[in-house]
């Protein structure tokens, strides 16, 4: 059934369709309307679930961990500072191999205080063992939340489904909401193999000595490897049921593309008409959209980007001191290419703190890279010009 939904409403619809049994969450802008809508569904009875009100995000995830350990399908949602506050338990959820699904509305980290989008909140959680999916539309939000449960429950790792603040969370658009019957067929009830069982008392999360800790970690890493295939399989199955297949990444006009834009989330959607325009103007441009960021589809990316001339990697994030994060990861993935097949990479950091990335911006980035105007390995896009790098870097200290 088609509906006009905002991104946050799309998350709530998907949680309802997935029949989450326990929702434990704490409100934060711009996530709030997700849990407001779910709370309303629970109170109306359209979702049969326990909604646990907590006093912090740390407790929110603790609630999910407890419920998931008991074998319940769980959900939480948060944003920015809230996700950061969860950090300790983010590790616990992954190490506990609990298939929790968390929706994070990408919001810039403070200070300076910001409610607008960028990806540093979720990418700061990159190394916790969670899977991460970045969505480009509300449609993809609905589809990905449901798929996330299926993949998580198969490989026993939690998933963050990520959507941009405002550009998705607060934007109404037409969405195909799948039928419950279909979702039920796609997503069977959770059977957690290591759930708490009153008949078989056990200690969870107990002390592990150096002779075993590594093995548990290797198992998580192996599960991520398996998850790559499972995401592809599940995305294909979803496509068969809905006509909307998904993969680890998405290619757009990559045939014969010599100039490739790599980016994620809503920007990847906006980029398409720009690619079209460039193609019309005779530039052999293409788009590679990152969707599943963890596990990282390095092999797939290598295969797609190998032999291209120029690759522009647009990061709405920054790992201070070393590039945008997508840029780092892609660069490391391409290292294994034979020398002649390695494209020239241009990292561009743009859109932090919610600054809009318009089609004109994207055009400027691609045109700049293609024409040779952009030469630096990393460019901060659309920022105040720098007169003297040294001075710009230490102004604050000098002032003191």
């Amino acid at each position: 059934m088609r509906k006009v939904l905002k991104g946050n409403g799309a998350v709530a619809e998907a949680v309802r369709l997935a029949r989450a049994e326990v929702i434990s969450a704490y409100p934060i802008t711009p996530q709030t309307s997700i849990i407001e809508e779910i709370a309303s569904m629970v109170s109306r009875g359209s979702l049969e679930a326990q909604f646990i009100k907590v006093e912090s995000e740390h407790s929110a995830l603790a609630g999910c961990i407890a419920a998931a350990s008991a074998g319940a399908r769980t959900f939480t949602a948060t944003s920015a500072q809230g996700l950061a506050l969860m950090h300790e338990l983010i590790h616990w959820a992954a190490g506990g191999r609990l298939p929790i699904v968390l929706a994070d509305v990408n919001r810039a980290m403070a200070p300076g205080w910001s409610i607008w989008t960028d990806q540093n909140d979720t990418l700061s959680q990159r190394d916790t063992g969670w899977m991460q999916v970045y969505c480009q539309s509300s449609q993809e939000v609905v589809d990905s939340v449901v798929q996330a449960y299926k993949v998580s429950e198969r490989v026993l790792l939690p998933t963050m489904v990520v959507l941009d603040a405002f550009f998705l969370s607060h934007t109404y658009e037409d969405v195909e909401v799948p039928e419950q019957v279909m979702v039920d067929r796609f997503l069977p009830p959770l059977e957690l193999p290591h759930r708490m069982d009153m008949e078989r008392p056990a200690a969870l999360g107990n002390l592990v000595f150096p002779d075993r800790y590594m093995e548990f970690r290797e198992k998580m890493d192996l599960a991520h490897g398996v998850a790559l295939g499972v995401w592809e399989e599940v995305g294909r199955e979803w496509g068969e049921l809905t006509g909307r297949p998904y993969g680890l990444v998405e290619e757009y006009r990559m045939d014969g593309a010599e100039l490739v834009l790599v980016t994620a989330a809503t920007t990847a959607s906006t980029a398409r008409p720009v690619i079209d325009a460039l193609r019309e103007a005779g530039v052999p441009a293409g788009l590679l959209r990152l969707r599943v960021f963890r596990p990282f589809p390095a092999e797939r990316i290598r295969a797609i980007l190998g032999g291209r001339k120029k690759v522009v990697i647009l990061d709405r994030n920054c790992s201070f001191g070393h590039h945008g994060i997508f840029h780092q990861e892609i660069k490391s993935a391409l290292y294994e290419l034979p020398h002649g097949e390695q494209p020239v990479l241009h990292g561009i950091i743009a859109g932090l703190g919610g600054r809009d990335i318009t089609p004109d911006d994207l055009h400027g980035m691609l045109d700049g890279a293609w024409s040779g105007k952009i030469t630096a390995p990393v460019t901060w896009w659309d920022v105040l010009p720098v007169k003297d790098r040294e001075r710009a870097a230490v102004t604050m200290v000098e002032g003191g």
Partner: protein
Amino acid sequence: MIEIRIHGRGGQGTVIASQILAEAAFREGKHVQAFPSFGSERRGAPVAAFVRLDTEPILVRTEIYEPDGLIVLDQSLILQKLVDVTQGLKEGGWILVNSSHPPEDFAHLGPYRLATVDASRIAAEHRLGSITAPIVNTAILGAFSAFTGLVGLEAIAEAISATVPVKSEANVEAARAAAVAVSVAEPAPAGR
């Protein structure tokens, strides 16, 4: 693709107007987007909301900088020059203002296609909001339909019924009344 910007003040239902408009267009089979200006809102402060309509799926997910048309819920935003409403408005674009004045009074805004409707009066007559603070967002959408023809009045009425939980009948009636009452400046300058 049509891009519309709606101006109003916090509390006047500007964002809801964008949602109803999108819902109405969606009911006619169009692809839609509607969103507020991102950030926080305060009652009384100038706010804006945006709508995109297209027959194709809408891929652009940015703010709207060069709208095709404007809906202004509060003429004081123009009269008191609180907001540069025409900023980025495409050449030959259209402007619909909630005002008791004839549309020619807004000719100073530039070479645009102009229309006015006294949505405040119509809303008050339908007891929407209070006399001092009538809620005009539904009425003006009726005028929008008649003025632009971008979305049919029946779709607007359906969208109002589906979206507005209280007094939905009166809101629909107000939209219908405004569709009749809208006055369009003649001769229209070149444009849509």
